């Protein structure tokens, strides 16, 4: 047996969520006294590949086939399944990223494996059982899922497992595969990625604002604070519904669920559907002019005040803190 981790890259670079997944997979390999192999698909430099060793991968399989430069769900799933068979992997780990969500279920079918998406902690392995905790009901609860299949697939929620550096090194091997034409039916025409912005699903800090900000013209303050903190921006549903902000920023039960270290909510009331998607944030700060806003009930820190007065002061305070740090 062994553990296989799919090391996802973005534009040839591994992201923090990938290192989290490698660290997580390493801990699972240790739980089972076995080795960890990583598989990378696409153009990634050999230094970048070898650096996966720092997080616990002993071997890195690198797939550089030209047809697999861009993410093609079906073909990538076939390659990872092949690698899993080659390595006799009984546990396959991925990041629960947008791509990971497309891969894990296909791998599950190919490998006749149970799949846990959105895992939040290490599996509990006792009495021959293998149980993984995942978020359910859009963050309103957790489910303990027992995987009963021989092969098991786990997709890890970003920001839920700490990156662990070791002094290990990894051997990088070329893994030659030839994708089937029937796996290459989708064609990527265009990729639009804003590289200057922190991506919301894996951001450590998120600055979010709601209808209390009155209109899109007032988001300058929100963006400035986010930029100072190295944070991603988010919003409540009515804000994206009104077109003040893009849909990709909408968090909550019907938007994306996030679990950053710090979530700053400005002018958001804290409706149950909003809280569902953000309640697994480690620390929550709420700024609202209404002391009775429900959001204060789940906040760690709060300021009762007008965002138009508090936010400029908060920006100054963060600037002062950064200047002194």
């Amino acid at each position, binding site marked *: 047996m062994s553990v296989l981790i799919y090391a996802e890259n*973005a534009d040839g670079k591994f*992201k923090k969520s990938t290192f989290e997944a490698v660290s997580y997979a390493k801990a699972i390999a240790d739980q089972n006294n076995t080795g960890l192999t990583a598989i990378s698909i696409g153009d990634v430099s050999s230094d970048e590949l070898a650096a996966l060793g720092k997080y616990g991968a002993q071997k890195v399989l690198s797939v550089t086939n030209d047809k697999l430069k861009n*993410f093609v769900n079906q073909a990538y799933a076939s390659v990872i399944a092949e690698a899993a068979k080659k390595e006799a992997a009984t546990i396959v780990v991925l990041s629960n990223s*947008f*791509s990971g*969500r*497309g*891969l*894990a*279920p*296909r791998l599950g*079918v190919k490998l006749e494996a149970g*799949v846990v998406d959105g895992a939040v902690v290490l599996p509990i392995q006792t009495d021959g059982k293998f149980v993984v*905790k995942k978020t*359910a*009901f*859009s963050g*309103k*609860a*957790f*489910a*303990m899922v*027992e995987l009963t299949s021989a092969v098991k697939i786990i997709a890890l929620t970003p920001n839920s497992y700490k990156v662990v550096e070791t002094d290990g090194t990894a051997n990088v091997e070329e893994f030659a595969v030839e994708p089937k034409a029937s796996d290459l*039916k*989708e*064609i*990527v*025409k265009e*990729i*639009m990625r*804003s590289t200057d*912005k*922190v*991506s*919301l*699903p*894996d951001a*450590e*800090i998120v600055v979010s604002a709601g209808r209390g900000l009155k209109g899109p013209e007032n988001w300058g303050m929100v963006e400035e604070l986010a930029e100072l903190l190295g944070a991603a921006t988010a919003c409540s549903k009515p804000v994206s519904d009104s077109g003040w902000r893009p*849909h990709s920023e909408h968090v909550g*039960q*019907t938007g994306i669920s996030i679990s950053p270290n*710090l979530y700053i909510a400005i002018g958001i009331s804290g409706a*149950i*559907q909003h809280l*569902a998607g953000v309640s697994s944030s*480690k*620390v929550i700060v709420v700024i609202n002019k209404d002391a009775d806003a429900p959001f*204060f009930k789940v*906040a*760690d*820190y*709060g300021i009762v*005040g007008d965002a138009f*007065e*508090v936010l400029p002061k*908060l920006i100054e*305070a*963060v600037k002062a*803190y950064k200047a002194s740090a």
Partner: protein
Amino acid sequence: MMKILVCISNVPDTTTKITFTDNNTQFNTNGVQFVINPYDEIALARAIELTDGGKGSVTVINVGEASTEPTIRKALAIGATDAVRINAKPHDAWYVAYQIAEYVKNNPFDMILTGRESIDYNGSKVAAMLGELLNIPSVSIIKKLDVDGEQATVEREIEGGKEVLTIPLPFAAGTAEGVAEPKIPNMRGIMSARTKPLSVVEPVEVKTFSDIISYETPAPRSQVKLVAPDNTAELVDLLHTQARVI
């Protein structure tokens, strides 16, 4: 004539407070209002738009017990042509996808739409599993969907951006916001929903690979620490020294 299949899940209304019974092993459905999964409403709305004016038909399918029929009828009222219910308790995404795939093998479709995820189990799994079971492409989270003849153009969500893809029919995809605005049933829709065909199909045998053994609710947070509005420096200091998040 384009035939679209829309998979609909019957989920607790978003305002539901989630609690459990039987030693935290069962979801407490007592007093819970069930609705069409919000993302599935988006899939349904887009399917109706794409087939509008006699260009095709929309079948909705649900794996569920008889208690889900009001939700299925709602989908018919919104504008689906007909409906199928696979008569079983949905054990997990694999079980659901397997049952739907078996149905589709005997009743082919040009396109299969699901929601990006169900708001109860949040797996985002059914679309990709259907793709694999039927050996067709799948795109898990799409924000835009257009069809031109035998080919569709979709926008896929990626971290910090999006990708535009072309994909030949048939395929499976999970829809998110942006694909369409959910539709509200009108009076005529509600009247006609009662007489639209809803066929009930018995499930096939399938191995299971996972079981939910229990649930937990998140630990309550300690009381909020309030900081005065003119003392933002104190807040920054607390975030640095006490919470250690900046």
